[in-house]
């Protein structure tokens, strides 16, 4: 369970919150002018990166406010929370070494469990 800092209530357990999917997906104002494909893009297609991700959460059991969060989905590191409507703040995070996030060698999927001798501790 994550520890999430609601911008309004402070730091609380994840169980008080609900995830509300990708952030900054604006609803097209001109739906009627869009092709089926463009409309489907809004309804169904989502970014699903392994790495930095802007998503929305709502403090369901607390203040009921929606807010945005930056999280590294490769590590679950929470980097920032910010209000709806605000621009994502600049953050730094360790992006996955390879697209899938694992070192090319290693013993498995959850690899990088073991440090290589030359790695700094």
């Amino acid at each position, binding site marked *: 369970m994550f520890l999430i800092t609601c911008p309004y209530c402070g730091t609380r357990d994840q169980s008080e919150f609900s995830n509300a999917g990708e952030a900054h997906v604006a609803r097209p104002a001109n739906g009627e002018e869009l092709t089926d494909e463009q409309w489907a893009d809004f309804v169904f297609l989502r970014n*699903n990166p392994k790495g930095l991700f802007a998503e929305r959460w709502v403090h369901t059991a607390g203040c009921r406010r929606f807010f945005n969060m930056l999280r590294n989905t490769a590590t679950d590191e929470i980097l920032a929370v910010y209000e709806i409507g605000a621009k994502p703040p600049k953050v730094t995070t360790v992006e996955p070494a*390879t*697209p*899938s996030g694992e070192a090319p060698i*290693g013993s498995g999927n959850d690899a990088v469990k073991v440090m290589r001798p030359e790695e700094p501790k």
Partner: protein
Amino acid sequence: MWRNPEPKPGYDAVVIGGGGHGLATAYYLAKEHGMTNIAVIEKGWIGGGNSGRNTTIIRSNYLFDESAAIYNHALQLWTTLGRELNYNIMMSHRGVLNLAHDEGEGRGLKRRVEANRLNGVDSEWLDAKQVKEFCPVINISQDIRYPVLGATLQRSGGTNRHDAVVWGYARACSAMGVDIIQQCEVTGIKTAKGAVTGVETTRGFIKTPKVACVTAGHTSVIASMLDIKLPIQSHPLQALVSEPIKPLVPCVIMSNAVHVYCSQSDKGELVIGAGIDAHTSYTQRGSMDIIEHQMASLCELLPPVARLRMMRQWGGIVDTCPDASPIISKTPVKGFYINGGWGTGGWKATPGSGHVFAWTVAKDDPHPIAAPFALDRFHSGALVAEHGAAAVAH
């Protein structure tokens, strides 16, 4: 045993992902379409993805015709796969129960049973007493919060040994000349004039005109290499096993309302699936409270298990689609094919999925069973919305 070759400079086709689906795809490409100059590229060890961490529930009692077709296709293949591969995949048709706890659920399940019957999928309705007879450990008392109203039973459903399936396919692939390349990660896909020309990997560039992406939780990551956005979200899904005990649970038990699914392995552990975390993540681990709810539900449903102990829990990364159905599809990029979005329930489809995907890749034309699962269904709206039928889709 499979060979561990060095990658060749080029292949007729490259399958990304050495899970059950990827290996099955390669197997049928080689066996049925004569494409043996191909490679399966796996970033870790084969079977280390969802194939190696699923609760192995196999059934085909899906609601819609399109789903029934593919899952039943798979079920047929499962029954003879062990012999075909000359490897015991421990396919055990011990029966799958889907419990109903209220009228709405009962109505939905009965609709499914009837649809199944007409689709030639074995499926029957049991009332609470019959449920108890079939699986005595289930609590059918009417006093509990979610009493058991009845269940559907698919007798031909069951479980098998996940690792054995992966290894069996790998051996057979290798024997036909397919290169299985482990510890090799695809890091990019090269195209020219809108068509695939090869893949970049951590072990160098590999030339190929056809790339079949079968990477489950990582489907979006691969697709994004070609700027293709998918209706897929990757979520943690957990499972756990109890300590091994003498036979207690004779079949597979699934319940949507209380979110439980459970079976017992041949080694004696109860294999129990937990819920999905609502957030996306690639960490292959989930939250503890999901497991806690799971355990409470299990204790309600199977009271004697309360004193048993959880021996190990783990997580996988499931690729979920908005309509709870997979994507088996050509893409806007020529020579790039996707098989993914199986979410929480693709194990059962493994041979069927590989079989129809191999056709799709080999012929550059969707297999009739695969056609309804093409990407463009999201444009047209022709979804195969299996949510209702498979809220716990395993």
